[in-house]
């Protein structure tokens, strides 16, 4: 039995992106829920399963049920970091297909920017890394970038071009948090943080929330907006701590991407628009390689000089990504919301012409968890 096309996203919304002064993480989450329910034309009382993952609330699945006044049949709270939400969709589809639930709500919200201005996490440094004071999580990604540069000759300029492309997309998105021009030179001249990564290689710290409503395909057309079908999904987990990652140039996206594309029956060349979790510039290069959009070691050349920018050969992170649009601690759900908007044709100036197939990809931990979703319009069923 395959989950291909069995469930669809029928509602999607963002809330509190950028700065949401005076609001708690859960309040932003609930505002996103209100938006997604309205978008779906679904009543709160119809929701019978929920899923969330919040960085500072170990029991956030329970908190969300409480704040919504729900007594759900399932309250999912699986915690793999920023990739969790792309796993929530797979479990949502499973519950729907097995008729264990009829309407699943997936939600996230964070006030990291206005609450602290920096990444807020309940995670401590791993026992065997703490003596050496790596910046968490930045130094882990810096080590991966260093290794990729050593092994494949990836350049500082190529890393910069990932951030430049994200900014160019953000300039087309009125909801993006940072929209002023950014050049390769600006990135390379920005402050060194953990070599080879510099300030402009790092995602934003913003507030923001997102929510999705999922239902079975058979009822998906009973809603105001065109359904976006989940065609495939897969996960890959390779480690927790960067010192335990088998090969810093190969992520679990090899596994998650292959599983998702096999389920969906698609190849990378079929995908119209790609939304990747870009916590740092190196992520995009790694994921493009591991998901099969280019060969291993060729990610740098793939992104160079506008390859993934507007007008390039593959549209990647069309909202501006975590680098320029929004990054409230965990970015996973935002890859899905942007994919939904592209597939519904709602993306305004940044709309990809006749987008039918989208890939959304989440990263959790320090390149530790990788989860891929393939989404499609009705035409792809």
């Amino acid at each position, binding site marked *: 039995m395959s989950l291909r096309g069995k469930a669809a996203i029928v509602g999607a919304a963002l809330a509190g992106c950028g700065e949401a002064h005076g609001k708690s993480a859960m309040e932003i989450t609930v505002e996103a829920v209100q938006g997604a329910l309205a978008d779906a034309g679904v009543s709160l009382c119809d929701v019978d399963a929920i899923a969330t993952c919040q960085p500072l609330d170990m029991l956030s699945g329970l908190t969300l049920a409480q704040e919504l006044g729900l007594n759900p049949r399932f309250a999912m709270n699986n915690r793999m970091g920023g990739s969790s939400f792309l796993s929530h969709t797979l479990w949502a589809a499973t519950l729907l297909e097995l008729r264990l639930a009829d309407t699943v709500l997936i939600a996230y919200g964070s006030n990291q920017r206005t609450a602290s201005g920096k990444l807020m996490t309940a995670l401590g440094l791993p*026992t*065997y*890394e*703490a*003596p*050496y*004071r*790596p*910046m968490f999580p930045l*130094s882990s990604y*810096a*080590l*991966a970038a*260093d*290794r990729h540069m*050593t*092994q494949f000759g990836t350049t500082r300029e190529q890393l910069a071009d990932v951030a430049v492309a994200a900014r160019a997309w953000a300039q087309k998105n009125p909801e993006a948090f940072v929209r002023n021009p950014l050049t390769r030179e600006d990135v390379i001249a920005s*402050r*060194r*943080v*953990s*070599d*080879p*990564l510099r300030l402009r290689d790092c995602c934003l710290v913003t507030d923001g929330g997102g929510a999705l409503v999922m239902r079975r395909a058979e009822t998906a057309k009973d809603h105001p907006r065109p359904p976006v079908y989940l065609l495939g999904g897969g996960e890959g987990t390779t480690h927790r701590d*960067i*010192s*335990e990652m088998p090969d*810093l140039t190969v992520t679990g996206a090899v596994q998650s991407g292959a599983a998702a594309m096999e389920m969906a029956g698609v190849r990378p060349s079929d995908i119209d628009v790609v939304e990747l979790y870009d916590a740092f510039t190196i992520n995009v290069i790694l994921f493009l390689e591991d998901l099969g959009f280019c060969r291993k070691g060729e990610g740098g050349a793939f992104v160079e000089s506008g390859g993934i920018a507007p007008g390039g050969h593959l549209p990647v992170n069309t909202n501006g990504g975590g680098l320029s649009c929004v990054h409230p601690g965990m970015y996973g759900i935002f890859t899905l919301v942007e994919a939904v908007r592209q597939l519904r044709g709602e993306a305004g100036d940044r709309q990809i012409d006749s987008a039918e197939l989208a890939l959304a990809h989440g990263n959790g931990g320090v390149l530790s968890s990788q989860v891929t979703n393939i989404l499609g319009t009705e035409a792809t069923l």
Partner: protein
Amino acid sequence: MEKEPGPDAVFAAKLAEGVFEIQKCGSCGTHVFHPRVICPACGSANLEWVTPSGKATVYARTVVRRKPERGGDYNVVLVDLEEGVRMMSRVDGVAHDEIAAGLKVIASIGEGADGQSAVVFRPEGGAG
């Protein structure tokens, strides 16, 4: 069965006495770090403590940039021990910018961020 400390505690106690040991699987021969209850290669609980040669090669390196008044720059590396296991550490006794993947290094016991004993490395054949 007598209650014995777990491998993390055993490793820490040895390190506090200036001894750096890793585990080796008695069933499949794989060396293991960090310390574990079972071998990640074969699942065997037959792990014994062995002394590594201390020889290692830098696999990846970063330099955390800090202002001098906040303690200044420091390096963080991943090294591959000759025995085939990888660990996070730092390389002392050489300029940060001269540390790169491929650099041959040798282990010694130094001080970690918390002032406790930690395994650190120096360039092989470098000054003392």
